[in-house]
């Protein structure tokens, strides 16, 4: 049994102290860290609850329930930030990334405390795979929301679309990892390649398009 709330408290305490010491201007960053880790904690509870509710086995919980729950819960602090503070697009991207990174970090810590850290190569693959997957989903959400939030006609549908895309991407990753064998290594490589491809597309194809639209 993993006492996930104890791990959460242990992680939260130094961040909280640092957040208070560092002053109000940088406090936002820490708040998003708490939100990301809190989202991970909450989604762990929700996953367990839904798995019991649907009488799902561990495979079904991993492949079908967890992606939906995790992506929805990860979106909640971001939505709150967007609706209450109406931030600038650049800030939305950063907020989404911090939430995603802290979510992934907390998830990795819980995984390590449950399974140990002996197998270096596996941990390395998992770190780059799962960690990067959450970051890719966060980047996707951040970039998409920062664009969609400027256009009233795209707000609601944009959120639905981005949530759908992030959930499906996450679910595909989990599906491939759960299959094992060589397929799981494809899954571990998938987020990094997606990140590189996304970067290239953004720089080569979309820069002009986005600049033109922003000018209009």
């Amino acid at each position, binding site marked *: 049994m993993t006492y996930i709330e104890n791990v959460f408290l242990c992680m939260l305490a130094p961040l909280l102290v640092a957040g208070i010491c560092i002053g109000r201007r940088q406090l936002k960053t820490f708040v998003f860290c708490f939100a990301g880790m809190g989202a991970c904690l909450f989604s762990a509870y929700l996953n367990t609850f839904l798995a019991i509710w*649907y009488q*799902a086995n561990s495979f*079904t919980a991993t*492949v*079908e*329930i967890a*992606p*939906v729950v995790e992506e929805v819960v990860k979106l909640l602090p971001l939505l709150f930030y967007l609706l209450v503070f109406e931030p600038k697009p650049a800030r939305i991207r950063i907020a989404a990334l911090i939430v995603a990174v802290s979510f992934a970090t907390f998830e990795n810590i819980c995984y390590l405390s449950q399974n140990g850290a002996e197998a270096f190569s596996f941990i390395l693959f998992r770190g780059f795979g799962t960690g990067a997957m959450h970051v890719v989903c966060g980047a996707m959400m951040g970039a998409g929301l920062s664009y969609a939030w400027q256009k009233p*006609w*795209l707000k*609601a*549908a944009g959120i*639905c*679309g981005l*949530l*759908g*895309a992030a*959930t*499906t*991407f996450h*679910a*595909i990753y989990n*599906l*491939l990892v759960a*299959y094992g064998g060589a*397929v799981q290594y494809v899954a571990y490589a998938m987020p990094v390649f997606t990140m590189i491809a996304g970067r290239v597309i953004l720089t080569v*194809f*979309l820069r*002009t*398009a986005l600049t*033109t*639209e922003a000018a209009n």
Partner: protein
Amino acid sequence: MAELFENFLQLAVTTIGVIISFLKYGKDHKRIDLLLTCFYGCFALGALYWTLYLFLYSTTPQVFYVSEFGWISSAIFLCILQDAMAYQEERKMKCRAKWLSLMIGIPLLLLYCTYGDVLSNLIWCGLMMMLSYCSIRGLIYARGQSGERRRRQFFHIAVLCFVASEYCLWTSGCFFSGKSVMSPSFWFDLLLTASLIGILPAARKAVST
């Protein structure tokens, strides 16, 4: 095997749709192309998950239909695309035929609710009714026009075909459980793929000057 082939085909079609509309958006920077990219992209992601699940595990998801998130998103983007293409006069136009969408949609919704999950069916049928409502209105409006405005009828016909094939697929799913070539579901799924192919050229034709 037949189901897998059909899913691969749908995945291929939507992926091609994403690539073409994305390249068009990169070139022309039109909102229509962006919405088409989102529509095909969401559909392709849903299809990719479903196909991979079927390919790797020889079964379909049992608890949560993750793919539905992608597919519902794609239908929402299609609704916005319709709205973005509608003229002011078209929105205000009065015609009785558009209520056909509700007359067909509501009984089908009740039928689906007796076979499956209420919330999912409400969302799906709501979206399909919205799509067909706007399409019928748009089609009647476009047919009364000439020139560029008349060309939009093809887009509305393509959307109506998409809605009709979805309804046929779901209705056949209520009565026939098989997934083989002999099952009507297979052929209606193929029809859906064909209607997905049709939406891209029809939308391009509608906005070309």
